[in-house]
């Protein structure tokens, strides 16, 4: 009697439910939080605070896109905050030193710089075979140190940046800031890329079972390298958009943001052990964290409770992930034994 392959319609249905359940539960949580906060403080849904919320989430959501690709492969990228810091200041310096330069050119240069920095990570990890945790920890230090040395006590002020560029962070189209539109478009691209294209599926494969991926003929080193280059490029874009959003950049820009990004990604259903999760979920995770912080602010909870809550949320998310995976493993084992 042939064993039932796991990828039956029923198995797939369960798998889909697993993915769906994370996204739906995130959406539900966000809805509940919004409802509760709005009843207690109606300003929560005012156009200004919604705009603030969208702007606050957008940069994190952008970084989450890159980090998802990385974590899917069971890797990690801690250096993104330093890359954002460098490209944010670089973008500002370009405007100062080359007045009249086009915003598109600045963004292109920022993305390119991020890409190059990401390539450093890629080379060390894929070729030098240094574990991602150590590499990106080292580059986190090195890039940030270089950033400090370069910026020193200077800063870019909003007055140095052309209004048209700052408008990315302030003007809206159909009530949604341009910055957020950029992130939404990228979200759709990433989502399609990861799901429908073979290259995208490779990220999942490498994370689920690296050995099997090698045996299946996937060039694992190259895929990992490309992943880190993408993460770097995204961080570069985020740097340019950081300048548009905040207008002022100094040496400490984006410091510490990597932990928020990783927390958002894991809360959003991308398991830290790799192979599971979607970009949509990850962005919803970022949104949930942002809405949650906003809720605390609106309810006048002292801001120092926020960190404890964030930590607790991450722990709950990991435990939930593990539980769901355990349940799934149990189910498939039961199916096997029937045959």
């Amino acid at each position, binding site marked *: 009697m042939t064993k039932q392959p796991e990828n039956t319609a029923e198995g797939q249905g369960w798998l889909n439910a697993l993915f769906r359940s994370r996204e739906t539960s995130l959406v539900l949580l966000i809805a509940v939080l919004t409802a509760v906060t709005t009843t207690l*403080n109606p*300003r*929560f849904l005012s156009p*200004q*605070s919604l705009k*603030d919320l969208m702007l*606050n989430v957008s940069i994190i959501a952008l970084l989450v896109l890159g980090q998802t690709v990385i974590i899917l492969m069971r890797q990690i990228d801690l250096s993104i905050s330093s890359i954002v810091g460098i490209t944010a200041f670089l973008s500002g310096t370009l405007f100062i030193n080359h007045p009249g330069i086009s915003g598109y050119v600045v963004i292109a240069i920022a993305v390119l710089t991020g890409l190059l920095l990401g390539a450093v990570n890629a080379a060390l990890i894929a070729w030098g075979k240094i574990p991602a945790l150590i590499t990106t920890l080292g580059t986190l230090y090195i890039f940030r140190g270089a950033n*400090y040395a370069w*910026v*020193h*006590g*200077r*800063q870019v*002020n*909003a*007055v140095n940046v052309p209004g048209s560029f700052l408008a990315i962070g*302030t003007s809206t189209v159909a009530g949604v800031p341009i910055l957020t539109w950029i992130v939404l478009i990228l979200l759709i691209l990433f989502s399609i890329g990861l799901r429908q294209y073979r290259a995208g599926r490779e990220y999942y494969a490498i994370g689920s079972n690296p050995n099997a991926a090698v045996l299946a003929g996937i060039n694992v080193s190259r895929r990992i390298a490309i992943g880190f280059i993408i993460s770097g490029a995204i961080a570069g874009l985020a740097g340019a958009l950081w300048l548009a959003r*905040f*207008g*002022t*950049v*100094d*040496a*400490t*820009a*984006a410091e510490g943001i990597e932990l928020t990004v990783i927390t958002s990604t894991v809360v959003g259903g991308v398991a830290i052990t790799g192979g599971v999760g979607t970009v949509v979920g990850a962005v919803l995770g970022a949104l949930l964290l942002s809405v949650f912080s*906003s809720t605390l*602010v*609106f*309810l*006048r909870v002292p*801001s120092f409770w926020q960190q404890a809550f964030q930590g607790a949320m991450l722990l709950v998310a990991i435990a939930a992930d593990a539980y769901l995976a355990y349940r799934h493993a149990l189910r498939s084992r039961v199916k096997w034994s029937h045959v």
Partner: protein
Amino acid sequence: MTRIPLMRTIAVVCSLSFLGTIGFAQDKPLKKDLKFTVIPKNINNPYMVIQSGGATDACKELGIEGKVVGPSETGASAQVPYINTAITQRQNAILIAANDPNALVPYLKKAMSQKISVVTLDSDTAPEGREIFINQASAEGIGQSLVQTLAKQIGSSGDFAILSATPNATNQNTWIKYMQQELKKPEYKEMKLVKIAYGNDEDQKSFTETQGLLQAYPNLKGIISPTSVGIAAAARYISTSPYKGKVALTGLGTPNQLRQFVKDGTIKEFELWNPADVGYLAAYAAAQLASGNIQGKEGETFAAGKLGTRTVGKDGVVLLGPPTVFNADNIDKFNF
């Protein structure tokens, strides 16, 4: 031996002392080959850069070797290694803007026991940790004038908040204390301080804290931000939001950063002093201390180059002078 006629002696002495009180003359000689270490709160802070620059300018004038070293974070302990290094290098004076009033005292005391003069500027430590403190303006004066400025703009009634820097910064807490004292006066009984938020002197955090204040307190009428990073971030947020013109913003900030916000109406009035002058005065005071010409006692005077003669006040505090008020009328005159 010829005796010099008495009148001529008196004349010479009088003219010499007259000459000594104008311009750049130093009345008492300084020790040679002095070496100073300037330790700002953190080295990436633009305000600190201006201040340290003033100190190093003064050092150049006096022929002193001055250098600026410091941490990139504003933690209490981050400045300690630099104090220790200065002791090891046997510097003659340490000029420091303290991140914490108490954590540095044991190390500064060690420095003083090794004959290193310690001058604090901008943000003080406990008095036993230093000999002289250069205060940019009377703390009481700053607190009072900020409250008065805001009261004028919101009609002395309504809720307001304070956006400060780091929670432990000595200067911030002293000014806030005087603000709260001023608020107790009967003319401000309609004004209520609803929250003190901390932006940690970080632009992004100050930005989001301002957001938070306006979201959580719908009736907020004004914000006082006695920190240049804070007021600049708050101004940027408010000027692109529907609160512009409805929520008054004032505080301490640099003209260059805030010029556009004064012009577009986000800020009516704010104040500051020249941070470079604070550093400049600190270096001159340290030079006199290191040469043994003054001890930091009340009543002593010393020459401070282009800032004229200065007197040491109570507890070794030297005041720079009253702050300048900036508004649309005079903001274009300044460049710092």
